[in-house]
């Protein structure tokens, strides 16, 4: 499935991803986007080779490693068996499917890994279900499933929110999003996502949602409590 995606990570994000400097949650969102998007894959390849050249061209200076141990080290390393290419190629890479009420969705590579051991869905208000993923202590990562006709409360966040569409579509004040789309919202952008046909997403949030309207504002302290508790558990 070569999906035409319209919403991509910025070049800055792709470069930082190539450096290995993004959080795990964010890196996973970008990795999953790359499964849909050949142009971002190309960008990452270019960044990787640029970064590699820069790295090799830099003079490490005086504080290199002590190579005195290198003979012992070499012997130890070269006495280890090497990987047999065939075992890698034939390693089964079954994509994992996620089952919601009326649909099953085949997940991109990295998310297959994430969901391999199963996920636990939890109902929220407004026809929205989430499955929390323990991947990253610095960011909240979930699968989010919006039932057909559902709408999230109008909200904003303290940090960045990234939503990667996996199946179906959703829309908000700024556009409509399809599978593979990488949607980034900054803390200043208030938005109300909704979905007519239903939508499965992977979402990353580096701080709890701050709801800005109506009764849902009451949810805030509660949400924050849950999030903090989750943080403490993972310590």
């Amino acid at each position, binding site marked *: *499935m070569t*999906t*035409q995606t319209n919403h991509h990570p910025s070049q800055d994000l792709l470069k930082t991803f*190539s*450096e*290995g400097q993004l959080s*795990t949650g964010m890196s*996973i969102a970008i*990795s999953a986007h*790359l*499964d849909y998007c050949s142009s971002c*894959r190309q960008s990452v*390849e270019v960044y*990787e*080779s640029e*970064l*590699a*050249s820069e*790295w*090799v061209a*830099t003079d*490490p*200076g005086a*504080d*290199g*490693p002590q*190579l005195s*141990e*290198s003979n*012992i*080290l*070499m012997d*130890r*390393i*070269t006495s*280890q*068996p*090497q*990987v*047999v*290419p065939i075992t*890698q190629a034939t390693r089964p*890479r079954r*994509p994992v499917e996620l089952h919601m009420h009326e649909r099953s969705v*085949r997940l991109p*590579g*990295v998310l*297959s*890994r*994430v969901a391999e*051991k199963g996920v636990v869905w939890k109902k929220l208000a407004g026809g929205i279900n989430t499955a929390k993923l*323990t*991947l*990253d*202590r*610095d960011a909240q990562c979930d699968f989010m499933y919006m039932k057909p006709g559902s709408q999230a409360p109008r909200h904003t966040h303290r940090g960045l929110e990234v939503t990667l569409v996996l199946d179906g579509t959703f829309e908000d004040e700024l*556009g*409509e999003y399809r599978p593979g789309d990488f949607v980034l919202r900054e803390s200043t952008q208030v938005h109300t996502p909704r979905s007519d046909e239903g939508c499965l997403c992977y979402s990353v949030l580096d701080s709890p949602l701050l709801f800005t309207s109506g009764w849902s504002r009451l949810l805030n302290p509660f949400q924050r409590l849950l999030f903090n508790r989750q943080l403490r558990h*993972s*310590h």
Partner: protein
Amino acid sequence: MQAAWITDFFADRVIHLDETAVVKDMHQLSASYDRFRMSAKDLAHGGDRVQERQTRATVVKQVAMERDDESLLIAVGNSQDREAFNVLFHRFGSKIFALGMKITRNEQLANDLVQEAMLIIWQKAPLYDLDKGSAQTWIFTLVRNRCFDILRKLKRQPDGISADDIYAETELELSVDPEQQQAAEIQLEQIQQYFGQLPAPQQQVIEYVFMRDLTHQEAAQQLNIPLGTLKSRLRLALSKLRDFIGVEQ
């Protein structure tokens, strides 16, 4: 202290070689030793034994030093070429260390990184080929992945995901399986058949959104109709198509 630590490092990485692998290794070793002697003989033309040995070693080293990263890495992968590996270590070791220092700001961790990375280069060298781009990029991504994992460990992040999962090569795993594809093609044929029976404005909307792959907004702009009109036409067209197919089945 350091030596003990190295022993620890390898203790949990010892993999028992089976006999055939050892025999194969021995063959490889004696073959490369023969090559070593031959080239030394050709180039050294006698002399006393000590001098000959020195010349020999220098020649082998120089030959290896002049090879590019790619051919060294391929030699390591294809024939467990230790001399080639040694040259790679000398080219990249200090650079890996510098990168480790930059990322972790910790000498011990940077040292770990060098050893881990070199071990992985050795182990994975058989997977490298020129299609994967330059050797330095291949080594860079490998080192980057180890850095990522080291940082995760440092921050005590939950297990279960590693850099190799995140930076895995995409094999277009989202491709549709053949059975599904076939079913989709049959359905597509049916849809095309009924598509002609839709009123022209509805056909147009379907064409812009599905065949030209435009967003609703873009399609509405290009067709010069309000977004609401486009959406209602689309909804109507889709429900008609669904009805057609439903009747057929």
